[in-house]
């Protein structure tokens, strides 16, 4: 299996919350590698540290120990302003709750990122937003506000907001949890396209085993530790045909070659 050069690495990351008796170790010496053009799927039971790992890797939460290396630079040795610039240039995010501005149309949600972050002109921002909405399949809904969109459409707008500045990394926290499978598939396919066509490194945090076929690497966290990291070539189908359109894919149906 040929390995491409990692562009984001977490090395021996540790993070705890609380103090004294209430102290809980969310991450225990976790190491992870994200590579360009790949979809990584971070899975594990609730409380396993998935969201904490995503926050640490993306520069939102400082680890107690360990390093995050992005393009050869230690993210957590940077100043707050430098880390902010790093996120502006390289990072896109989607969250469970969409978090779209209620007053802005779908197009304006995307334009805002470009005009505020990249100082894009209004004309350029509008063109890019319209292009992105076309890719998202929402060209005819550009003028609609979040209150007028379905859950799947809102999440696609949120994905568009994450991808509009062509980020190097995109971190998606439970992007399909609030969606039915049809809409969820659309969202994950967008992320897959961003990886395989645009070369972004995607990290999806999810409980949803149906996303496994879309992942190039599957990371499994348990109790703050990296239990397994598997490339898709190491994940073999069992007696069930794993078709991308087939619902109800269970992780127990898969054989993981160790």
């Amino acid at each position, binding site marked *: 299996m040929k390995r491409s050069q990692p562009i984001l690495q977490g090395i021996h990351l540790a993070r705890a919350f609380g103090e004294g008796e209430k102290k809980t170790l969310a991450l225990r010496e976790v190491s992870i590698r994200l590579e360009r053009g790949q979809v990584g799927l971070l899975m594990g039971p609730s409380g396993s540290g998935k969201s904490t790992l995503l926050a640490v890797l993306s520069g939102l939460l400082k680890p107690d120990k360990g390093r995050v290396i992005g393009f050869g630079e230690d993210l957590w040795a940077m100043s707050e302003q430098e880390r*902010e610039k790093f*996120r502006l240039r390289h990072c896109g*995010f989607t969250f469970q*709750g969409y978090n*779209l501005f209620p*007053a802005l149309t779908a197009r*304006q949600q995307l334009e805002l990122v470009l*005009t505020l972050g990249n100082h894009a002109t209004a004309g350029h921002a509008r063109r890019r937003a319209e292009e992105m909405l076309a890719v998202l399949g929402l060209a005819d809904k550009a003028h609609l506000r979040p209150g007028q969109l379905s859950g799947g459409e809102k999440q696609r707008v949120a994905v568009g907001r994450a991808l509009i500045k062509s980020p190097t990394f995109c971190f998606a926290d439970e992007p399909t949890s609030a969606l039915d499978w049809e809409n969820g598939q659309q969202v994950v396919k967008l992320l897959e396209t961003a990886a395989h066509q645009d070369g972004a490194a995607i990290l999806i945090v999810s409980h949803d085993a149906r996303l496994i076929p879309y992942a190039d690497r599957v990371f499994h966290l348990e109790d703050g530790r990296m239990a397994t990291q598997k490339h898709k070539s190491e994940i073999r189908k069992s007696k069930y045909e794993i078709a991308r359109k087939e619902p109800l894919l269970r992780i127990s149906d898969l054989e993981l070659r160790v």
Partner: protein
Amino acid sequence: MAIHSYTLTTLWYDRQRFLPGVLAVAFSAVLTNLQTGLLLGLFSTTSIPIDHSEADIWMSAPGVLSVDLGRPISQANLSRMASYAAMEAPETLLLDYSYWLKPDDSKELCIVIGSRLLGRPLGAVRELTPEMRGRLSEPGAIVVDEAELGRLGIKGVGDNAKIGDQRVRVVGLVQGLKSLTGPYVFCSLETARLLLPGSFDQATYLLARCRKPEIASNVVESLRGHSDMSAFTKEEFSRRTRIHWLTQTNAGISTAFTAALALLVGAVVTSQSLYAAVAASMREYAVLRALGIPRGRIIAMVLALSFWVGIVGIVLALPTTFGLSHVAEVMGTRMLLPHWLLGSVMVVTMAMAVLSGLAALRSLRLTEPASLLR
């Protein structure tokens, strides 16, 4: 989209969410305008004898703090004033408290103002028309403000009354000269000498007009060389009177305190309303921070929001202020809304709105992007 475009879009779309904040700003501005306007109007009545007369220069006994607290000075000083070429037509004014005897035998404190009435008198308020001044030449004739009739226990022109031991007759009524303390009673110098204690050769004030009004302050400076009198320009004495009432009397201090309280209430209501409205979007702002949008630009968005809430609030406040002040005037309450007051309140209100936005930003600092992942 530009920050202001985003802000105005959000304000319009989410107008129900921001309405409490806008109304709080408007309420604050109206309350402060009216309370301060009331304060100014109330205490402007204390300087009516100065503001409504034609004299440029007022001379009094040394150290007089307020126009109603004058002490007797010699009329012989008129000749001293007449020797100043820059002044013309110096004359006497009598002004003092006395007691008005009401029909039910109760007494009401009143301020008797006796002045020259012929020609272009300096001490007579301009509301006294030539016809009224003609009628006031009759001994015992007086003019009062229409709004004081109830206080004085009389019904109108033609009624008789007593001031001290002297019988008086109302020969005319004026409007807009209601007093903060005792009602003003306007009369001739001769009538005033009957009503007030003091010798014939004494005056309460000596008044003069400057040949060139713009040099009044220079003339006053030269008059201040005399230690046995105080000299003021019209504006100085008016301000001195009002400040005395504002700062040295319970009425002034309590009314000023109420005006300050109005500002404080407005500030608290505005800050809480805006805080709630802005804080409702904290998760969206946290997403922008996660995406690396510079903190400064997000701060600018919140401040722009607060700014426009302030502007809309003030736009609502101005006609409301004028409308309510008109209602107050109709009800007989004097209210002054000078441009400097309206401008100052606008500035203070806008500052409150923007500071409220800054306070809301504190919650932005507390809403770290990482919290979106928990």
